């Protein structure tokens, strides 16, 4: 891209505005042909979940997401990349994570956003505790085998 923009990474308690973040990557630019936005939201698990409590490892969370972002920027020609991950209490229907990738061409934007999410799921130090609607503690969300398996998709051939 003619204008190289460093990735923007934020770990925050507050909600984010996905549209504003996407607009930040394209405003005043005419070399961006594709913007892919991923929003991860809290589901209510068929009405059983009252909230997710997101714990994170301050300092390492930023470092790890920065590493994932740098890897994405190195693999695909991106005009911009924004990653925001919330912590604290998040209720069903609310936002948890945002990834926005901008590029000249659609495949770079799609691949980069998908790559970031796959690594974020398994490598970024965040944990989810479930608070149930019946008032009980639903325990910690367990890591899924399928998430770890997804990483195999991104093994470099060279």
């Amino acid at each position: 891209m003619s204008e190289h923009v460093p990735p923007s990474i934020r770990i925050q308690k507050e909600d984010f505005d996905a549209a504003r973040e996407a607009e930040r990557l394209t405003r005043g630019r005419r070399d961006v042909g594709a913007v892919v936005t991923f929003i991860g939201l809290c589901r209510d698990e068929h009405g059983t979940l009252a909230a997710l409590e997101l714990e994170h490892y301050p300092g390492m969370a930023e470092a790890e997401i920065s590493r994932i972002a740098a890897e994405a920027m190195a693999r695909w020609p991106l005009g911009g990349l924004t990653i925001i991950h919330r912590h604290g209490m998040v209720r069903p229907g609310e936002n948890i994570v945002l990834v926005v990738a901008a590029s000249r061409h659609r495949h770079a934007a799609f691949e980069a956003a998908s790559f970031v999410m796959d690594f974020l799921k398994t490598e970024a130090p965040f944990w989810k505790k479930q608070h149930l609607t019946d008032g009980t503690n639903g325990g910690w969300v367990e890591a899924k085998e399928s998430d770890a398996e997804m990483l195999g998709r991104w093994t470099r051939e060279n």
Partner: protein
Amino acid sequence: MTKLVYFAWVRERIGVPEEEVALPPEIETVHDLLRWLKGRGEEYAFALAHEDVIRVALDREHTDHDAKLAGAREVALFPPMTGG
């Protein structure tokens, strides 16, 4: 002194979010550290019972159980991550 930090159910089971410890000189690897911690009390033994699922970061970088501590100042122990 080495700073140990715990997250999620590892933190809940051990009962403290972090602590400073003086490691004996024979503790060389992550594996040695886990064995040593399990001998410190039943809360540690419970938290670290299934060693293979415990993830470790040395100075905020993921590492495996064979790694040497090599003077790391902050060692973090936590379950597999579930962010995103």
